[in-house]
């Protein structure tokens, strides 16, 4: 989560809750929003590494709040991140391990594993459909994120079908 926070701070200085809200507002409910504790831990690390600094801002009837801003080093790290190509998706599928290994041990039958997994993928897809319907049609970022998740899920399902065809 380090770089998204740097990116948000490059726009304007902010405190932890503002960053949390900005992430939620941008990515919508498909994005598993980080809890505020994680955000402060990450900000603490970024501060230690010299990427951000914090200033205390007094508030009238509440404790001071810390407002974070980006340093020159932080901006450079952000620029490097943006400039690099990003790793493509990798197959890191726990289900595939089950499918290949479990029948060897006699614990499970492949057909049953595949069927259960297919139903699971389809129920996830139904959730994504519902989520897409509930998402503000103006929030393009959130809708694209959901569509991306759907396309990945479709690929998983197609692969499942190939496994069912090829593995006895």
């Amino acid at each position, binding site marked *: 989560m380090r770089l998204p926070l740097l990116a948000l701070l490059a726009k304007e200085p902010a405190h932890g809750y503002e960053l949390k809200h900005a992430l939620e507002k941008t990515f919508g409910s*498909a994005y598993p929003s980080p809890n505020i504790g994680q955000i402060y831990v990450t900000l603490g690390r970024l501060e230690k590494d010299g990427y951000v600094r914090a200033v205390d801002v007094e508030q009238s009837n509440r404790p001071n709040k810390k407002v974070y801003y980006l340093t020159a080093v932080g901006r450079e790290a952000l620029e490097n991140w943006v400039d690099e190509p990003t790793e493509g998706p990798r197959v890191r599928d726990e289900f595939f391990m089950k499918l290949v290994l479990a029948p060897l041990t006699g614990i499970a039958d492949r057909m049953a594993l595949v069927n259960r997994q*297919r139903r699971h993928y389809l129920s996830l897809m139904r959730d994504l459909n519902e989520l897409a319907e509930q998402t503000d049609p103006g929030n393009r970022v959130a809708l694209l994120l959901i569509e991306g998740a759907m396309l990945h899920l479709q690929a998983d399902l197609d692969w499942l079908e190939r496994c069912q065809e090829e593995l006895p």
Partner: protein
Amino acid sequence: MTGTPAIKAINLVKIYQSGGVPVPAVRGIDMRVESGEFVAIMGPSGSGKSTLVHMLGGLDVRTSGEIWLDGTRADTLSESGWALLRRRKVGFVFQFFNLVANMTVADNVELPALLGGATPRQARERREYLLGELGLTERASAAPAQLSGGEQQRVALARALANQPRLLLADEPTGNLDSRNTKDVLRLLSDVHRKGQTIVLVTHDARVASMADRVVSLLDGEIVDDGALPRARRRPAGTVGDVVELRG
């Protein structure tokens, strides 16, 4: 789960003859679809999905077994008997559209409604509703050959729904559609299903299948899975954290 099922198939078998060699495409399928139910059929290519729905719609003759539609034995019908039954009760969306080439889109869609006994005005209103829902209002006076594959596919769906059939059979109805047009089709299917339409549909598209009440999976001409989708366990705060993981 009582009442007359929309479809009942008993030990349905189809064996094609290909150059003197028997090709078993469907190998003993038992299936029951309740009235108002939405069933998706999935499976690898060559697993017998098209053959199954073609037999259920009387477009392919079964080798053995029984087919009952709405309580009536159908597998013993003659070709004209099937044609009459289809006209009254079944809408079919083919994988390869089969639109009438020398008729406009509007006429293609109105025709089955007129044949089914609708007045010209009812047929027109139904056509306007269906083409509107599928984003095709502008194409009403075009000829099928002037349409893209995706447009033809949506016209085929509109045509199949024109006379509000008791049963909609569809073979990969979103196979040629991009994501946005698929969304229109999904919306229409869920709308007519909500109003009681029975649907049996072959699909590879997980978005389409996930809308069904039940998913039937075929492999090598047999049913290997048949069941309702599990209600996904509720995730905290409505997220789908299992699927979405953004890194950075």
